[in-house]
């Protein structure tokens, strides 16, 4: 388990990320987990007949990958206040996605030690398809 992150140690501009392979098997597992069985996510012929270059990653999966990024980053004692993303572009499957976060603001409010983040999902060439924001509460030392 990762060491606990403390608010005192956070600096604005700090970045973190994870790299996630998006195999067709991964998308099938997500379909089972989410109940989203739209064929553009697992049926090559169906996707191509809908003018897509390949099967594409579910938007909601990308949103939840961002949730995992911030959940793992905050540690057991941190708390996710909220996170959200916009779906601005499609990501073909069978490529790695870069799920990233960057600290934009560190502050205290209502007795809580908070951190605002920019978050997102990017393709291997750096194309940003899923920008968003998050707010996390962290423990103080």
């Amino acid at each position, binding site marked *: 388990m990762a060491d606990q992150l403390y608010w005192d140690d956070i600096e604005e501009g700090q970045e973190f990320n994870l790299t996630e392979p998006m195999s067709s098997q991964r998308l099938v*597992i997500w379909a*089972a987990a989410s109940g989203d069985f739209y064929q553009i996510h697992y049926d090559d012929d169906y996707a191509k007949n809908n003018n897509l270059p390949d099967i594409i990653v579910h938007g909601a999966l990308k949103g939840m990958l961002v949730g*995992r990024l911030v959940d*793992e980053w905050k540690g057991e004692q941190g708390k996710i206040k909220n996170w*959200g993303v916009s779906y601005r572009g499609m990501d073909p499957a069978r490529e790695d996605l870069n799920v990233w976060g960057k600290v934009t603001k560190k502050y205290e409010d209502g007795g809580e030690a908070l951190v605002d983040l920019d978050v997102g999902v990017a393709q291997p060439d750096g194309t940003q398809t899923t920008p968003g924001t998050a707010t996390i509460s962290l423990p103080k030392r």
Partner: protein
Amino acid sequence: MAEQLDDLNDDMKAAVGQETGRTTYEVTTQGARTFARAVGYTADKYYDEGVAKELGYTGLPAAPGFLGMPVFNPKGGGREETFENPFKRRLNGGTEVEPIDQVYGGDVLEAVSRITSLELAAGRLGQMLISSSETVYTRESDGVVVAKTRGTGISY
């Protein structure tokens, strides 16, 4: 292509604030594990209830964002349309999650959705109707609101 609208019609204006659906979600332990697997979690607490309890959880925790699955109805049904939408093609514009209380395998949640705003806009796909909604998830066993989600839908 849908008829161009100068403004929201009366049905659309009346739909803002109205309840659009009330759905029961089951958070099963297997569902929680499958979600964690799909999203790539490796922390034992999301798979092993014993480990989770050693960390202070009261059961198998659902990873953030997992709010169960709606009970499947083979006869269809589901969300009611509160107005006739002239734009037939739809995109998911985005999602926001506000976790409020820990969700556990075994929880049953009631989800109540409302449209919070409707707006006409022009885009590269032509005229669009942008719909914002909020869903509140309440645990049936204790009446605690465990999460809110907000979504943006784009019809064109």
